[in-house]
């Protein structure tokens, strides 16, 4: 018997940007039977409840996920792994367990260890912002966002269908990817940019120590290249530590390119510098952001 989203009780664990925005979409669109929000902090529980983002709000994980048809984990990655271990034996047979963590290898390995009968689908909607927490949540966050889904070998086709239905119901575009492939790709387009932005801010701050005027001059270019450095540190620490090898590999590639740009500049090799910059200029101009 195929279950549809409209028949399901959905429990969202973690009411930060991603989790709370999803709750709002589900509640406002009346997309499912019941939306439960589980948050660690009582203030968040109260906030989510009074904002009408959830039907039921609790800070008790065990009873929050009890009897849910779909459980979505939207805490930082390492917490997702802990939560999976903790709730595994308490889930109902057939329950779909999804996550929204930014790296997939550790999460999918923990999902593999769930009791049989539970249906895991790893996931990662690509719509983060540099602001975190319930206060930054908004409905419609998922519209047009790619939502990576990583089913496991044990996942039933029906469960993947339900996960896809959920992603589409909030306007996202589901893309099925194996965990390792996902992690390698996001290391390049998300985790590396974060580290580069962080290094960039460090470099500018160092200049700022000598001459504060630098902050007043900073405008569009600095804003765009440093934006993600303002992201939630706790979230990114988990991401970096759970995707260390892929990120290191990307950093090595990046360092090579920085090194070669530096060498060309130091040598005053204008022709080659121009050629190298032209390549990246064309590649960037050819890429259109989805939103």
């Amino acid at each position: 018997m195929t279950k549809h989203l409209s028949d399901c009780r959905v429990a969202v664990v973690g009411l930060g940007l991603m989790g709370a925005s999803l709750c709002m979409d589900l509640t406002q669109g009346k997309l499912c039977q019941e939306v439960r929000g589980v948050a660690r902090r009582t203030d968040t529980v109260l906030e989510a409840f009074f904002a009408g983002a959830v039907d039921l709000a609790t800070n008790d994980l065990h009873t929050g996920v009890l009897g849910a048809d779909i459980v979505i984990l939207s805490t930082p990655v390492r917490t997702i792994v802990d939560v999976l271990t903790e709730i595994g034996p308490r889930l109902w047979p057939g329950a779909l367990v999804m996550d929204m963590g930014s790296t997939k290898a550790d999460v999918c390995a923990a999902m593999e260890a769930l009791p049989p009968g539970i249906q895991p689908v790893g996931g990662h909607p690509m719509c983060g912002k540099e602001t975190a927490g319930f206060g930054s949540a908004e409905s419609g966050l998922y519209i047009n966002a790619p939502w990576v889904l990583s089913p496991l070998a044990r996942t039933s086709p029906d469960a993947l269908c339900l996960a896809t239905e959920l992603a589409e119901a909030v306007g996202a575009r589901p893309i099925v990817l194996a965990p390792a492939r996902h992690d390698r790709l996001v290391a390049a387009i998300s985790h590396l940019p974060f580290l580069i932005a962080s290094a960039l801010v460090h470099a500018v701050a160092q200049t700022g120590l000598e001459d504060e005027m630098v902050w007043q001059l900073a405008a569009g270019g600095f804003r765009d290249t440093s934006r993600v450095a303002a992201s939630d540190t706790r979230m990114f620490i988990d991401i970096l530590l759970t995707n260390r090898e892929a990120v290191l590999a990307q950093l090595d590639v990046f360092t090579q390119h920085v090194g070669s740009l530096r060498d060309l500049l130091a040598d005053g090799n204008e022709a080659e510098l121009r050629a190298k910059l032209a390549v990246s200029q064309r590649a960037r101009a050819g890429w259109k952001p989805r939103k």
Partner: protein
Amino acid sequence: MIIVMKQGAERADVEGVVKRVEELGYKVHLSRGEARTIIGIIGADEHLMSQGSFEVMDGVEKTMRVMQPYKLASRDFSHEDTVIDVRGVAIGGPKIVVMAGPCSVESREMIIETAHMIKAAGATILRGGAFKPRSSPYSFQGLGEAGLRFLAEAREATGLPIITEVMSTDDIELVGEYTDIFQVGARNTQNYSLLKALGKVRKPVFLKRGISGKIEELLMSAEYILSGGNMQVMLCERGIRTYETATRNTFDINAIPLLKELSHLPVVSDPAHGTGMWNLVGPIAKAAVAAGTDALMIEVHPDPKRAWSDGAQSLTPEKFAKLMNELKPVAAAVGREI
């Protein structure tokens, strides 16, 4: 414990109550009732009620005790009835399921013959004991694995799913290779290590009420299985020991509607053990259907006089077929099918 806020209570009132709950070290559940906020408190004991003095707080209408120590088995946690699917037979749905067969599997031919007979009469699950918990160590103890094999052959021959008893943790693997439903007998209802182990399997468990077991004890036993992660549990009323000796046990008809009210789990009735007398099985089966049972377990033996166990409470296949017909109008009267 549940705190019901007044209609139109302010957010600050709710926050006040929640803060107080936190100070006492408990977690909260916030939900909406009819135009009012309901605050559920997890794991709160009676102590909290007096300590918290919630009733005098602003915006509080009343507080209610939730006494049940069982959580997963409780109706509060799943308003919908649990329906257990056993090879296409739904237990806990609108149709009342009849499980029938002999007390013990006595031979290959006997169990296959009985399976055909009960199927023809309308039963949809075959029962039969291979490991028998007997009051005397000198009584027949069951055929063991051979009995399981014969049951599986009967399933093959008739398509009926099978249920059989598992008596010890050591036998779970072996019994699990054959059975579709694990039966836990009345003598094992509080064998917590067996229950815990059955919490780890992913096959339905049929849990009988203990011989002197209280309703709450039965639900706590179910909680052991549920908390292990196995949510497919059905509860069986099979009669309790009272001062009355005219019948083997006293079938507790109260248990059926009460269990349905307290829990979302399917309820099965066993009028054979509940009475111990074949001539009472039919009337009590009808009473159980009228009271809202989801399934019946009835002992049927091709020749009860020669049965190796429980002959006195077994029906002949003819009497069983007659009873099945008589149950239909009773089921219809309470909006069910059989």
